[in-house]
């Protein structure tokens, strides 16, 4: 329970809410440093973790908003694949990389828009709608790609995406930039405030003049844009557009948001937490590879960690 004292000292549970995810991240890094010091203290390690986590963090940033309004977006993996495939097709057919990237992100926005329109017009839970569009968007990806990978992008694109600025990969810079923009949106804009209100209490939001459908639509467009940007980053990293790309990525995105302290019941969560959640997952994955844990066992560990971290979070913070 929150403290009733006059001066607000930081209680343990409040400290946990604010810095808990950061603490876990640091703890994981320390464990890794102790177990494999030779690998750990190399800049390439940090670079690798950052660039591996970027795609997941980008998707999770969009997913965060869907969860914030007590919804979910299961289609993000397919959106990454479809907008990535669309971009790839444009680039190999001679469109300039900049135009292709912009159109690809726009495609992500459009797919999110479709999700939002469907949720609003049917009144069904986003879980059902995005479960459906997950299959539809994936199917469209397979159709337009003829079920085969697309590669051979202009050298300028590949070069740009492989760059590092002060050891920081471009992918990570993109993710950080998007996170900063969205943090601004959640903290400083009325739109952001309204989304929290809608997630906290739909009915109260409606009676307070908040247009529920409009905000729901915007949330899914944001989720689509984030997935579209993740599509760009993935394309840059892999060097080709695979029709089966990003399959199952929604799971990691949801996990990152939840580990980062986003409430599944809506209305609570922070962008900073989502970034931490994404990094935690990235470090765990990297660490298990480093410790040569088999990929099958990695799945088990990941699942257990999701349940464990959220349980710990609820337990320590005493949240309902």
């Amino acid at each position: 329970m929150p403290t009733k004292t006059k001066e607000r000292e930081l209680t343990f549970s409040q400290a946990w809410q604010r810095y808990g995810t950061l603490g876990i991240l640091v703890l994981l890094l320390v464990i890794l440093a102790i177990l494999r010091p030779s690998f750990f203290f190399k800049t390439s390690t940090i670079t690798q973790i950052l660039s591996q986590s970027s795609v997941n963090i980008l998707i999770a940033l969009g997913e965060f908003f869907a969860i914030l309004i007590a919804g979910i977006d299961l289609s993000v993996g397919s959106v990454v694949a479809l907008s990535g495939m669309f971009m790839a097709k444009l680039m190999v057919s001679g469109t300039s990389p900049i135009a292709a990237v912009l159109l690809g992100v726009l495609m992500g926005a459009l797919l999110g828009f479709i999700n939002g329109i469907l949720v609003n017009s049917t009144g069904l839970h986003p879980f059902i709608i995005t479960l459906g569009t997950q299959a539809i968007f994936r199917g469209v990806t397979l159709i337009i790609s003829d079920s085969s990978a697309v590669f051979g992008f202009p050298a300028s694109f590949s070069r740009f995406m492989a760059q590092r600025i002060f050891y920081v990969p471009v992918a990570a810079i993109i993710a950080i930039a998007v996170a900063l923009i969205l943090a601004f949106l959640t903290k400083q804009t009325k739109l952001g405030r309204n989304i929290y209100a809608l997630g906290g209490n739909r009915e109260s939001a409606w009676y307070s003049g908040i247009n529920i459908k409009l905000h729901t639509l915007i949330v899914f467009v944001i989720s689509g844009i984030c997935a579209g940007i993740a599509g760009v980053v993935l394309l840059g990293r892999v060097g080709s557009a695979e029709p089966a790309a990003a399959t199952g990525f929604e799971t990691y995105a949801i996990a990152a948001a939840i580990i980062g302290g986003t409430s599944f019941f809506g209305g609570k969560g922070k962008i900073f937490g989502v970034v931490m959640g994404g990094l935690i997952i990235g470090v765990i994955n990297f660490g298990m590879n480093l410790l040569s844990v088999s990929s099958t066992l990695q799945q088990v560990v990941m699942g257990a960690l999701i349940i464990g971290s959220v349980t710990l979070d609820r337990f320590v913070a005493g949240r309902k």
Partner: protein
Amino acid sequence: MKTLVEMKNVVKKFPGVTALDGISFDIRSGEVHVLLGENGAGKSTLMKILSGVHKPTSGEIIIDGKAFDHLTPHDSYKNGISVIYQELSVINELSIGENLFIGRLPMKKLGFFETVDHSEINKRAREILETVGLNRDPKTAVEELSISEKQQVEIAKALAADSKVIIMDEPTASLTNSEVESLFKIIRRLKRDGKGIVFISHKLGEIMEIGDRVTVLKDGGYVGTKNISQITQDDLVTMMVGRQISKNYQHDTFDFENEPVIFEVANLSRKDNKVRDVSFKLHKGEILGFSGLVGSGRSEMMNAIFGAEPKSAGRIFIDGEEIKTSSPYSAIKKGLAMVTENRRETGFFHNFDIAENISVLPFVKTSGAGGISGLVSKKDEAQWADEQKEKLNIKCYSTKQLVSELSGGNQQKVILGKWLAADSKIIIFDEPTKGIDVGSKSEIYSLMRRLADEGKGVLVVSSELPELLSICDTIAVFREGKIVKFFNHREATEENIIHASTAQESEEI
């Protein structure tokens, strides 16, 4: 007649409020015992003690000569007490027969296993359904039934459990006239079979028709028990009213009729017929109250005015200028405010602190593009919160405190604060003091009067008559979706308001 259940000197205290103050009540075999009283009089609490939901603070319950200091739901069920709540508890997905025997379905052996014996269920169900006059196949899914048929299933369920006492909480609230007639037929049959019926209702005409005895409660206290054959409707009204009104908030010398009309509604109707051709005017400085039974259309009208629910016809004016309210957003932009009935569901945001709750409204009101454009100003937010904390005397250690930590009265002030921070002109209060302690109540009344004096329009929907009588300059009485009468506060009494709101359609008032 044999006494089935007797409650003696039952006291129930909730934190800060005495819900029942030494009530005695008995139920005899073969009678309909009516329980009457205003909202909050203690009827439901008394019945919840009998059904084992609440544990009495003191008192005794005697069933068949056995004395209990409290009942568990299981005791209650085992001793033959069934309650039919207003919100029916049948399970829509199951068949009628399964509903009747749920929890103790007859089983049959099938090899090593036991399975549900559906033929036995249907056979026994058919007999019981006949008793309650429901001509339906027991295999029918309950979701296919009408409300009155579902109610018959509830009664059948009580019979299937071999209940001796059946408590019906406002059973006629959602029934048509002919459905009420068939319900009464069933009740008469149950009486002949020796059951004891507790009938909770507000409708005096019905009570006179079906009741044998009546017990009246008021503010948790016992008023009296009478034989219905020996009293009139007027006697019932007299027994129900007469609560002391501690203070009046009207200005006695003030004549608002000469003041300008600041708000007007003309010929408002809803497609669902819950509001039919309603018109009223509000003058500067006047507090207009809306009385009527629950479901008579008062809240429905307010929701339509505020744009939260659709209207089919009608015009709305603020200061003589017509406004369109197609959504709460458009209503808010024009200066309307609505303090809703359920704070928790439609009032505040549990995930926001006090300051954030208050600033939601001014932020939305000052934003463009349908409420999405613009930036949040922490400075404005803090200033609005401090202003309202000061003005409304919100008791908190900081405006950064979560609203869910506050008392009901202070939560209500926060909600009022968000509307005042948005500089609303016309404020609709729907049950403004529901679940609020006495001290905060009078504070809220004073606030409402102050707002009216400052030139804000104040409209109040309340089911508590003493509340309306002590704060309103004018009281409009709703019945079946229409305003049937306006009373000036000088002529308004509990008697004439209850008469106006409960009289049957054909009667003259």
